[in-house]
C-alpha cells in the first residue's frame, strides 16, 4: 500500500466514505440502519450508513458516545444484524457472527484462569486447532507487543495496558485478514495510550491487515488511520470523511505536522457545530 496524499493543498481533505473505484473493497456497508425497539419506543442508532474499507486499509471511526459506532463494529462482525441495508465482508453477506476476523474491545476480556500466552492461544483452541502448534507464534506475538517476558503471567499480574496488549495478540494469532478494534485504548491512561498507538501502527505496518478502529479520540483517529470517518450524534450518520496523508510511520512528530493540526481542528469544528462540544475556548471555523 502506498502512502496516500491529501487531495487539496490545505491538508485535510474530504473524501467519499466509499472506497474509490478499482480498489478492492474488503468491507462494504450499503444503507445500513439499526433501530432498537425497547418498551414500545424506537431508538435509531444508525441511519443509512454507506461505508467501505479497502483491503489493507486502516479506517478509524470517531464520534461522540452513543453515536452507534460500536454498533457499527458489531454489525461488521455479524454480532448484531442491521435493521435494513446490506453488509458484506470479503464479498459475502454478513448474516451471522463472522469468524474470519480478530476483535479487540475496550476491556481486554481476558480469561482470569489463563496465563498471557494461554489467553492468546484460546483463540485457536476455540477454533478447534491444536494450541501446541501455535505456541511459538503466540510467544513471538507477545514479544512483538512487548510482553515477551510476561507470557506466563496471569491477567491480574499485568497492568491495564499489558492486558490490552495480550488482547491484541489474541486478535492476531490466527492471522485473520480483518482486525476490529472497539475503543481498544479507551480505558488506558494518556501515556500508555500514546505508546499503544505507536506500537499498534508498527504492528499494522508489519501485517497490513484491514483495520476498523473505533475511538472517541480525535487525535488517535487522525494519527492512526488512512481514512477517518466522523460520525454525528444519534442517529449515527457519516458526517464527513478525512484522509490524513501523514507519512508513515507517524511517530511522535506527527502531532506537530500541519496536516495533523488541520485535520483535528476540522473534526473538532464538526463536533462544535453538532453540539457534541461546546465552549467559548475555541472560535469556530479554524480551517
Amino acid at each position: 500500500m502506498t502512502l496516500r496524499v491529501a487531495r487539496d493543498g490545505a491538508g485535510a481533505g474530504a473524501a467519499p466514505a466509499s472506497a474509490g473505484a478499482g480498489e478492492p473493497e474488503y468491507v462494504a456497508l450499503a444503507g445500513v440502519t439499526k433501530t432498537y425497539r425497547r418498551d414500545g419506543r424506537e431508538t435509531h442508532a444508525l441511519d443509512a450508513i454507506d461505508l467501505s474499507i479497502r483491503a489493507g486499509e486502516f479506517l478509524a471511526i470517531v464520534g461522540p458516545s452513543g453515536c452507534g459506532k460500536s454498533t457499527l463494529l458489531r454489525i461488521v462482525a455479524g454480532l448484531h444484524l442491521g435493521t435494513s441495508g446490506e453488509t458484506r465482508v470479503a464479498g459475502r453477506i454478513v448474516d451471522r457472527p463472522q469468524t474470519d476476523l480478530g476483535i479487540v474491545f475496550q476491556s481486554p476480556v481476558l480469561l482470569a484462569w489463563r496465563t498471557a500466552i494461554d489467553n492468546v492461544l484460546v483463540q485457536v483452541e476455540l477454533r478447534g486447532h491444536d494450541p501446541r502448534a501455535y505456541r511459538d507464534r503466540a510467544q513471538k506475538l507477545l514479544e512483538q507487543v512487548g510482553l515477551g517476558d510476561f507470557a506466563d503471567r496471569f491477567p491480574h499480574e499485568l497492568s491495564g495496558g499489558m492486558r490490552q496488549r495480550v488482547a491484541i495478540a489474541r486478535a492476531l494469532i490466527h492471522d485473520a485478514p480483518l482486525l476490529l478494534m472497539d475503543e481498544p485504548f479507551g480505558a488506558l491512561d494518556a501515556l500508555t495510550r500514546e505508546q499503544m498507538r505507536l506500537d499498534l501502527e508498527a504492528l499494522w505496518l508489519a501485517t497490513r491487515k484491514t483495520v476498523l478502529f473505533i475511538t472517541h479520540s480525535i487525535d488517535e483517529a487522525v494519527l492512526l488511520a488512512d481514512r477517518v470517518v466522523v460520525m454525528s450524534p444519534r442517529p449515527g450518520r457519516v458526517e464527513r470523511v478525512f484522509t490524513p496523508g501523514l507519512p508513515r510511520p507517524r511517530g511522535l512528530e506527527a502531532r506537530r505536522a500541519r496536516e495533523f493540526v488541520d485535520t483535528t481542528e476540522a473534526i473538532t469544528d464538526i463536533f462544535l457545530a453538532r453540539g457534541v462540544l461546546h465552549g467559548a475556548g475555541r472560535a469556530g471555523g479554524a480551517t
Partner: protein
Amino acid sequence: MTHASRAAAILAWLRRRGGALAIFALLIVVWEVGVRATGIKEYLLPPPSTVWTEFWKRHEIVAGGAWVTTQEILAGYALAIVVSIPLALAIAYSRFMEQAVYPVIVFLQIVPKIAIAPLFIIWFGFGFTPKLLLVFLLSFFPIVVSSIAGFKSADRDVMDFARTTGAGALKLFLKIRLPQALPQIFTGLKVGAALAATAAVVAEFVASDKGLGYLLLQYNGQLDTPMVFATIVILSLIGVMVYYAVEIVERIAIPWHVSQHESAQDATM
C-alpha cells in the same frame, strides 16, 4: 530447604496468624483466671480446664455422637451439591426453567427452613432421613443461587469474542462459562458448608436418640455445663473441617482465583 528459610517461613506464618492465635490464647487464659477469681458456679460457666477434663472422661461418647452428626452433614451436603449444581445449570441455560422454576426457588428460600424440621419428623420419623433432608435443604439454597449467578456471569464482550471464533456451545461452556462460574460456585459451597452443621444439630434437637445435638440437649438438661461446652467445641471443629475441606478443593480447582484474591489483599495492606 535450608534451616534458615524454613525458620523464615514459620516466622512469616506466625506474622500472618500470630495475632489471631495470641488473642485466642489470651481469651482462654482470661476465661480460666476470671472464672476462678470470681468464683462463678461451674454450671453457669465452667473454666476451660474443667471442660477439658470432663470431656476427656467421656470422650468416647462424644466421639460416637460426632461420627453420627458428621455422617448427616456429609450426606446432606453431598446431596445438596449433586442436586443444586445441575439445577443451576438448567436454570441458567433454559428460559423455561428460569421463568418457571427460579421464582419458586427464590420464594422457597424465604421460608425459614428450620421451621420445617418438625414436619420432617412427621413425614420421615426419627432416623437418618429427616436429618439428611434438613442439611440438604439448608445448604441447597446458597449453592443453587450462587451457581446460577456464576453460570450467568459471563461478560458480554467475552461471549462476543467467543462467538467470533465459531466455537460450539459445549466448547464455550467447558472453556469459558464453567471456569468463569467456579469462583461463585465455591462461594455458595462455603456458605452451604457453614449451614450444614447448623442444620444437622437443629434436626437432632427436634427428635433423635444420637448425635451431638442429642448429646447437647442431654447435657443441658442435666446442667452438665462443661460437657455442653465440650460438645459445642467439637461441633465447631466439625464445621471448620468441612469448611476448610471445601477451601482446599477450591485452592486446587481455581488456584488463579485464590491467588488473585491474595494478591489483592496484599495490595491493600
